[in-house]
């Protein structure tokens, strides 16, 4: 079973992001970029499926030159191949989904895995848009995946409980936290990944259908009122919540 995994190179969740001089993007020079955390779940799931059923895991990432670093992380975890859709240009997610769909057309796959969400733009849209662009079914934000012959059964969490979804294959799944525990790349994996060739595909330039107007810092919270120490402070807290904050 051949599996395609879409991965994104994103700022570390710890990073303090700052607005760049253009006012519409972030300063990237001091920021550490990593493989998107949700994509780790996607890669891990793909590796487990391959280990159980054979085949190959191919990674696909669209982005600037540096995106290769995250492709290498995925290769170091154990993926077989990586394809880099080289584009420095910023796209809206639908345009990107179409570009990835075109690239996916050149890679044989039985199933596609994406992360639920990229932790930079926080859209949580690409996987499903990619499925539509490829005319494939999709199940988003899955916490469990079972592949049977020609079909798959996935679970997703919704507000009121858990949905069990059955789909034909090929299909696109997006990985939610809880799907698995991603492995750490081993030293051998890292060394091997450094030597693998990453295939490059040029990305067609196209205009974004979403215009960025402005980027701003949200109003910061200025908390810091310590009501007191230990259980003795409880009456005062309750009074403040009731009388001052008026939330009780």
């Amino acid at each position, binding site marked *: 079973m051949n599996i395609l995994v879409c991965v994104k190179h994103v700022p570390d969740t710890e990073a303090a992001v700052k607005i760049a001089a253009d006012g519409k993007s972030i300063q990237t020079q001091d920021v550490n970029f990593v493989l998107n955390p949700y994509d780790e779940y996607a890669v891990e799931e793909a590796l487990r499926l391959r280990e159980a059923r054979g085949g190959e895991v191919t990674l696909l990432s669209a982005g600037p030159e540096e995106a290769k670093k995250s492709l290498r992380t995925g290769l170091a975890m154990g993926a077989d191949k990586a394809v880099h859709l080289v584009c420095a240009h910023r796209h809206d997610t639908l345009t990107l*989904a179409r570009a990835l769909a075109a690239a996916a057309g050149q890679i044989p796959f039985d199933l596609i895995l994406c992360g639920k969400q990229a932790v930079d733009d926080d859209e949580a849209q690409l996987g499903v848009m990619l499925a*539509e662009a490829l005319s494939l079914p999709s199940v988003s934000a899955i916490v469990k995946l079972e592949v049977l012959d020609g079909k798959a059964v996935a679970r997703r969490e919704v507000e009121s*409980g858990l*949905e069990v979804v059955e789909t034909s294959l090929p299909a696109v799944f997006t990985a939610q936290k809880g799907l698995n525990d991603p492995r750490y790349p081993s030293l051998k994996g890292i060394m091997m990944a450094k030597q693998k060739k990453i295939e490059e595909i040029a990305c067609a330039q196209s205009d974004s259908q979403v215009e960025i107007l402005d*980027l701003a810092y949200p109003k910061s919270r200025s908390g810091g009122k*310590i009501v007191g120490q230990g259980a003795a402070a409880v009456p005062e807290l309750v009074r403040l919540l009731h009388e001052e*904050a008026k939330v009780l």
Partner: protein
Amino acid sequence: MKVLVFAEQREGEFRKAALEACGAGRRLAEGGELVGVVIGRGASAAAPKLAAYGPDRILTVEHPQLELYSTEGYTTALEAAIKQEQPDAVLIAGTATGRDLGPRLGARLGVPVLADVINLSWNEGKLAAVRPIYAGKLHLSVRSQAQPGVATTRPKAFPAGAPDPGRQAQISPLEVELAPDAIRARVTQMHSEAEGTIELTEADIVVSGGRGLKSHENFKLLEELARTLGAAVGASRAAVDSGWRTHGDQVGQTGKVVSPTLYIACGISGAIQHLAGMTSSKVIVAINKDPEAPIFKIADYGIVGDVFEVVPALTEAIKAMK
């Protein structure tokens, strides 16, 4: 302006977030028309309840293939409604369902979707929105160049508005055609959560516990407090990864984003990834024995103390108040 809102319902009950989306749509329509779309089992029975929340007209879609939610089926239904109505904007509440439906619909229509927005407006006749990015570290203002402008709205970011029982809406069914094999991914089972549990993202009060709780059993203390307050119970990733709570309870960057009126963090240090999920709460209370814990920097009220003493005392104090 004409705005179309997908009003998510299950078994005749509208999701709170869907009512909020209606409220947002009502304001966005300005003097224009607001059309609600209700899909699935129980749609026409539920539709009259929606009228109080602002739509001028409500379309109901019922079909044997649309009894339960499916990405493809609901997309087709919503697409039909949009083709018929030609709205300027389409709003979908950003629930688990809405975040699944929105991108599929956008891709089907060939228009981008402004995801998880917290503010909506018109900018030179185009749909504009503010969306938190980088886990809320920044706010991005964007404008869709496409027609219609489609957005998913973040739960609790828009007020639902008080229901106006006097409001009338014209309710009409919408026929959709669905081939027997149109839906390839289907829900085959639903496991509902235990009766009486309050959904985290909808709760007005959230009581969350972290590594400081030390065990699965100790979360009983928080459940007791939550019951007293009518609150939902959340958790830090440390608590979830320790196996004390399920993934669905996690608050934060890789968990749920909550914006209750009151958030009580117990034994949580306040890591940046946790803050990402709760700093938009109206009032934050922190209980932590370490006065240096970063959570105190953003909490409105803090108690420096042991959760095992403070939480039971708080539960008692609130019981006494009621």
